[in-house]
């Protein structure tokens, strides 16, 4: 039976990719954010996953506005990045695991989540940046990626309740995978930010604190708000917290918070990095 060892939750602001490319990790603007990754690096030295299951939103690399799946599950043997138009270097490719992906897909459909399956899928900065942040020195990844895309981009959006239930169904699938394998979960995006409209630049530290305080021990608290409530509370892009909620569901229970960092602003975003661990983590964080 496969086991979830932990979860890495972090923002995926494109400008972070620019800072990595330019080596600005110790620059005064960037240092508070990058320092939040140090506990993750230390923990990952002792905890090497076989699989990384990720929850993020695509930004137009796979899906344009003409075709927008609510939940899209990758089942490819390899995931490549491509030019997204930011002027960033192309990120590393990541190997996939069609077998494990199809096991989770089959379980999700049995659980009545009618997901879109993608036997070809590009990964965008929302995945590549968190991977680069977590393993900055790896030139090639030695785990297999299983990526799940959630529509946080074009309304109507899935509800937080549905995102949490989806994550919990993924956890059930992980537990029923007949392999002695370690699984690490990623949830990316957020926290509060709004790029568009007269309210551009809006952030909400109080709501972000509510999310960070409750996500480890009481994730259901985050489902008291609808997706539109969260747009109001957290900004039109703060709704990327849906990725975190689903990822938290995929970790199972109980989990403990091993590290937390929160910093305003990175680009136009309240940026955060959280490491949560389970009883199956190999070393104390």
């Amino acid at each position, binding site marked *: 039976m496969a086991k979830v060892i932990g979860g890495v939750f972090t923002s995926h602001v494109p400008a972070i990719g620019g800072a990595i490319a330019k080596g600005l990790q110790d620059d005064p603007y960037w240092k508070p954010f990058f320092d939040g990754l140090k506990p993750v690096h230390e923990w990952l030295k002792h905890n090497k996953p076989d699989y990384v299951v990720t929850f993020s939103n695509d930004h137009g690399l796979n899906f344009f506005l003409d075709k927008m799946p609510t939940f899209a599950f990758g089942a490819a043997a390899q995931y490549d990045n491509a030019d997204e138009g930011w002027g960033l270097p192309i990120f590393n490719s990541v190997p996939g695991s069609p077998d494990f992906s199809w096991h989770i897909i089959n379980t999700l459909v049995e659980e009545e989540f009618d997901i879109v399956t993608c036997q070809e899928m590009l990964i965008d900065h929302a995945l590549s940046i968190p991977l680069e942040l977590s393993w900055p020195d790896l030139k090639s990844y030695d785990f297999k990626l299983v990526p799940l895309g959630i529509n946080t981009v074009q309304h109507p959006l899935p509800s937080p309740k549905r995102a949490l239930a989806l994550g919990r169904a993924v956890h059930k699938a992980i537990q029923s995978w007949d392999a002695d394998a370690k699984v690490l979960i990623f949830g990316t995006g957020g926290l509060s930010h709004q*790029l568009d409209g007269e309210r551009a630049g809006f952030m909400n530290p109080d709501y972000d604190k509510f999310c960070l305080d409750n996500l480890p021990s009481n994730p259901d608290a985050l489902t008291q708000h609808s997706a539109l409530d969260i747009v109001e509370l957290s900004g039109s892009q703060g709704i990327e917290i849906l990725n975190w909620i689903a990822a938290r569901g995929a970790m199972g229970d109980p989990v403990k918070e091993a590290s937390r960092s929160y910093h*305003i602003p990175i680009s136009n975003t309240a940026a955060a990095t959280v490491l949560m661990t389970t009883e199956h983590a190999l070393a104390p964080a």
Partner: protein
Amino acid sequence: MDDEDAYCAKFKLTCEQREAVRQRNVLAMIAAGGNVYYLAKLAGIFGLNVQDLGAQQTGKSVAEFKQMMLDQAKGI
């Protein structure tokens, strides 16, 4: 980008959309159906980053817009 009219025509932009793009007016682009997740890529096209976009949409200078975001860090 050598022939902006031809490029916009290729993707069948409406008059309203074409005018919003011509004016580089982000609020008008959104009003005409744009989505900022995609408009943010103006960074790679015109060199307009999300601070430039934010300043334009809120009627602030870029420095004022950045200060407004910094101010939100107070008390955390």
